[in-house]
C-alpha cells in the first residue's frame, strides 16, 4: 500500500490533528467525535454542519471555516460517521438561530443524520436537514436510494455559508440550499481505483486501458466501463451527461468546476477545463465562475468530475463572497 499512513486505524484522527495543527487560530477539534468546528462562532447566526465518510478531503472537515461550514464530523474512510458524532456535531454549534444540516445523499449518512436530528430535536434544538443529490450518473427512481451527492456539495456549502454570514435565517438558508441543489449537476470518471488505508488494497479492479464512467466518490461502479479515451472525448461525454440533465440552455450563466479525484495532477485538470470551456461556449453558456482543483476526492483515485451550476444574481453574489477554510494557497 503506497500511502503515507501509520496505523491505518489512526489515519482519520491523525489527519484531523494535522488540520487543527495547521489552523490553530481558525479551528478547534473534539477528537472523541472526529469533529472539527470553527472557533469564535457567532451565536446569532445559523450554524451549518455536515459529516460524511473520510477520504473526500478537502470535503468535509477541511471545508469548515468562515463563510463555509460551522462544524463537520468525519466517519472512517468511505463510511458515514457514527450517529453519536453527528448528534454531537449539531449540539456543539447549535444556536438560537438554528442549525442547517447538509447531508449528501448516501443511505449511511442519511440514516445517521436522521437519528442524530431526531435526538437533537428531542432536546429542543432547532434544525433543518437538506439532502444534496447532484450526481447524474445514478438513476433517480423510487426504487433506489436516489442520486448521490458529490462535488456539487461544494456549491451548496459555499452559497449557504455566505448567506449565513450575511444573516439569513434557517428557512432562507434552506431555500438557498434548495436553489443550488436544483441547479447543480455532476458526473465523475475514474482512471484508477483507490486504496482505503484500512482495506490495504484497491477498492475495485480496472484494466490498464479502461475507465469507469460515472464512478461514485467511493469507487462505486458507474454507468459503464469502457476503453480509455482521449481527454477531449472524456470531457465531452461528461459535459453532455451533465448539461443535458437539467438541461443548461443557451444564455445561462454558469459556474463550471473540474474537480480532481485525488490522484490526477493539476495540469491534466486544466486540459479538461480547456475543452469544457469550449463546450460551454458552443452551447451558449457563459462561465461566470470557474473552479479547477480538488474539491471532493476519492482518496488517491486518478479521475475527475465535471460540475455545472446554473447561476442567478443571488447565487453569483454568494459564490463571490469571501470565505476561508483549512486549505490555503498562500
Amino acid at each position, binding site marked *: 500500500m503506497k500511502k503515507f499512513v501509520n496505523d491505518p*486505524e489512526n489515519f482519520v484522527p491523525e489527519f484531523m490533528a494535522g488540520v487543527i495543527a495547521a489552523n490553530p487560530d481558525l479551528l478547534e477539534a473534539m477528537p472523541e467525535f472526529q469533529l472539527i468546528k470553527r472557533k469564535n462562532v457567532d451565536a446569532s447566526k445559523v450554524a451549518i454542519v455536515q459529516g460524511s*465518510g473520510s477520504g473526500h478531503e478537502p470535503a468535509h472537515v477541511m471545508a469548515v471555516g468562515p463563510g463555509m461550514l460551522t462544524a463537520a464530523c468525519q*466517519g*472512517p*474512510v*468511505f*463510511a*458515514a*460517521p*457514527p*450517529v*453519536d*458524532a453527528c448528534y454531537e456535531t449539531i449540539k456543539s454549534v447549535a444556536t438560537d438561530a438554528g442549525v442547517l444540516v447538509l447531508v449528501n445523499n*448516501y*443511505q*449511511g449518512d442519511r*440514516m*445517521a443524520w*436522521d*437519528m442524530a436530528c431526531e435526538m437533537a430535536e428531542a432536546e429542543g434544538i432547532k434544525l433543518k436537514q437538506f439532502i444534496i443529490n447532484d450526481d447524474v450518473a*445514478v*438513476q433517480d427512481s423510487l*426504487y*433506489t*436510494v436516489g*442520486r*448521490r451527492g458529490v462535488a456539487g456539495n461544494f456549491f451548496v456549502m459555499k452559497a449557504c455559508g455566505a448567506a449565513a454570514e450575511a444573516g439569513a435565517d434557517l428557512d432562507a438558508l434552506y431555500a438557498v440550499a434548495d436553489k443550488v441543489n436544483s441547479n447543480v449537476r455532476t458526473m465523475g470518471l475514474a482512471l484508477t481505483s483507490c486504496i*482505503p488505508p*484500512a*482495506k*490495504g488494497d484497491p*477498492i*475495485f479492479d480496472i484494466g490498464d486501458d479502461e475507465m469507469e464512467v460515472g464512478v*461514485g466518490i*467511493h*469507487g*462505486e*461502479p*458507474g454507468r459503464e466501463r469502457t476503453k480509455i479515451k482521449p481527454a477531449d472525448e472524456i470531457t465531452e461525454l461528461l459535459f453532455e451527461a451533465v448539461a443535458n440533465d437539467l438541461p443548461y440552455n443557451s444564455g445561462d450563466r454558469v459556474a463550471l468546476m473540474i474537480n480532481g479525484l485525488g490522484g490526477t495532477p493539476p495540469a491534466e485538470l486544466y486540459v479538461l477545463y480547456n475543452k469544457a470551456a469550449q463546450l460551454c461556449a458552443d452551447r451558449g453558456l457563459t462561465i461566470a465562475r470557474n473552479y479547477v482543483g480538488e474539491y471532493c476526492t476519492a482518496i488517491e483515485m486518478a479521475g475527475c468530475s465535471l460540475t455545472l451550476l446554473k447561476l442567478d444574481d443571488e447565487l453569483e453574489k454568494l459564490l463571490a463572497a469571501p470565505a476561508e477554510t483549512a486549505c490555503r494557497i498562500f
Partner: protein
Amino acid sequence: MSTLSSDQIAKAIDVTCDTVIANEKYFSDLDGLAGDGDFGTSLATGFKVIKKELPEIDKSAVGAMLLKISMICSKHVGGSSGPIWGTGFMRAGMASKGLEEVTYEQLTEMLGSAIEGIVARGGAKRGDKTLLDALWPIHEKMQEMDGSDLGAVLAAVAAEADKAIDETRSAVAHRGRASQVGERSANTPDPGIVGVATILKDWCAHYGVDFVPQAAELKR
C-alpha cells in the same frame, strides 16, 4: 421449554465479535464488488469495542445489556451499518427490557422487533437485497419451530441465511451504497446477508451443531 440467560446471550455476542473481527477484510472485499468496501471495517470497528467492553457490561438484565451494545454501535460503527445494527440491538433490547433471561418466544419477538426497527430506519422491502432478506426467513422459521431443541433451531436458521445468499445473488440491490450502481450489483452476494450467515455458521461450530453450508461464500 428452554430459556437463554443473559450470560448465554453475552457468550453468543462474544462469538459474533470473533466472527466479525476475523472477517473484516473479507466482508469489506465483498462490499467492494458493488458497494463501497467499508462494510467489514465499519462492523469490525464496533465489534472490537464490544469485544473489549463485554466483560465489564452489566449482565443482570438482557435488555440493558443489548441497549449498551446498541450505544456502542451508535458511537463506533460508521456507514449504514451503524444505524442498522444499532437500531436492531436497541429494539431487541427494548423488547427484553427488565428480563434476566428470555424464553424462546421472547427471543423470537426480540428478533421481530429488531426487524421492524431496521425496516423503519432504512425502508428496505423484501428482495431489496439487504440483510433483512436473511432476517425475515429466519424470523419466520423461528415462529414455525417450537424451540424445544435450540440446536435444531440454530441449524435451521443457519440454513435459511445460507439460502438467502444464493436467492438474492442475482437480484439488483435497492438499498445502501450498492443500490446506486443499478444492474451492476446483480450477481454479487450481499455482504450483509453473508455477514449474518457467517455469524450463524460460526455459532453452529461453537455450539457443536452440524451444518453443511451451500453458498460459496460460506465454504471458503
